[in-house]
């Protein structure tokens, strides 16, 4: 068999691509340039940690990727498809079925138990109801036996993990997590990062994790920093 020395495999297509993205916010009195000509690739199987000072635009990147806002210039491409070319319904469908999101504030509905919150998220994707799948998701985030509790009866860390189970309920290809791990205690943060890493490895989940916590960031595949409107790779 002939051997080709030095041949390289073609670079894998990124799951998510930001290309030349600019975003400006305007109000009556002034204009704020959040970033200009931003580029970012998120790959399957990778946990990308995003760091940067408060107000640097990290959450804006999450909103752009999730299709909650459109860039002033540039492209957001999800799995080969330009998000800007999608209809509202198509964007909603991608969000519901392929992207999981978890925020610092949590997004649990307070009048539903943890298990109902997870079941609800699965229902929105059109997935068959499965008590076993809901229990398994709660078990994976360390909440076995806590599913029947309402959010008000969960500790802050438990509620955050329930929110993660909600975000993973649609078996997403991409998980967007905005300061969702840093506020967990150290042991729980490691448990959650282990879970994300095993999902990244086993089924190619791509993760974008906004975090202030250096120890959490050290557990990711790589870290990018958003500083004065530019992304810099640091590891």
């Amino acid at each position, binding site marked *: 068999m002939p051997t080709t020395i030095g041949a390289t495999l073609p670079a894998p297509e990124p799951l998510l691509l930001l290309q030349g993205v600019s975003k400006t916010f305007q109000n009556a009195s002034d204009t704020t340039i959040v970033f200009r000509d931003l580029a970012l690739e998120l790959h399957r199987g990778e946990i990308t940690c995003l760091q940067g000072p408060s107000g640097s635009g990290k959450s804006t990147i999450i909103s752009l990727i999730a299709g909650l806002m459109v860039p002033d210039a540039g492209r957001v491409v999800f799995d080969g498809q330009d998000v800007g070319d999608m209809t509202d319904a198509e964007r909603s469908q991608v969000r519901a079925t392929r992207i999981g999101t978890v925020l610092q504030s949590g997004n649990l509905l307070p009048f539903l138990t943890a298990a109902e919150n997870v079941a*609800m998220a699965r229902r929105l994707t059109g997935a068959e109801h499965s008590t076993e799948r809901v229990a398994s998701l709660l078990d994976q985030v360390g909440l076995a036996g806590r599913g029947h509790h309402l959010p008000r009866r969960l500790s802050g860390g438990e509620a955050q993990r329930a929110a993660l189970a909600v975000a993973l309920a649609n078996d997403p290809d991409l998980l967007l997590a905005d300061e969702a791990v840093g506020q967990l205690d150290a042991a729980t943060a490691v448990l959650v990062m282990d879970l994300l890493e095993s999902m990244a490895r086993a089924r190619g989940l791509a993760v974008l994790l906004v975090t202030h916590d250096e120890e959490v960031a050290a557990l990711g595949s790589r870290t990018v920093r958003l500083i004065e409107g530019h992304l810099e790779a640091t590891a």
Partner: protein
Amino acid sequence: MSIDLHQDPSPAGGSQGPGERIAVTGLSMEYDSPSGQVRALDDVALSVEPGSSLAVVGPSGCGKSTLLGILGGLEVPTEGEVRIGAHVISSMPNGERAALRRRVFGFVFQADNLQPFLTVSENVGLQSVLAGVLDEPSGRQALLDALDIGALGHRFPDQLSGGQRQRVAVARALVHGPGLVLADEPTGSLDPVNSDRVVELLLRLHREQGATLVVVTHDRAVAARMDAVVSMRDGRVLATEARQL
């Protein structure tokens, strides 16, 4: 535990009509706290006519939010009986109580708890899914129109003002035609103008739909607009006054 969210759909608004009667007797609630056992409610009795509105007022820590949580099936009392219509929710199995909570009740809290990655319309539609009712897009739109947010259905919560967001939360609480709407400080984070607007719309829709309405509030102006006001202190009901009609 029942978390079956796949009930056979019934037409939206199927439960509309007379609201649920509330009858509470001998209600007490105790729980452990770091500083010892707390008696949050102490022998509370309460009666609310179907389709009427009630305000619960009192200082912080008087037990009013605990009471609302028990009425809504979010908490189980230590003692006493709570009847919502034909249902004794104080002694119901957890799964049945959860199903009732999703189908018959509507909730509004001080925080709007909107899902940031769903549009306004999708957020409102959540409750229809939970209640297992068919969600006619025209019905959802009519409700948004009635709340003066008819043009905002495709927007995301972050793109709305605080008053608009809370009106979306009101729409979510009403879209499935609940028999009982429970609101815990629904205007607590709003300025007086927006507060007035939200209360006015909540009252108008509660009357149109016929739902029973219970509002916990520290705001006397909000309380004064309800049919009756219950004043609480230290876990007990001090007085009940009906508004002069």
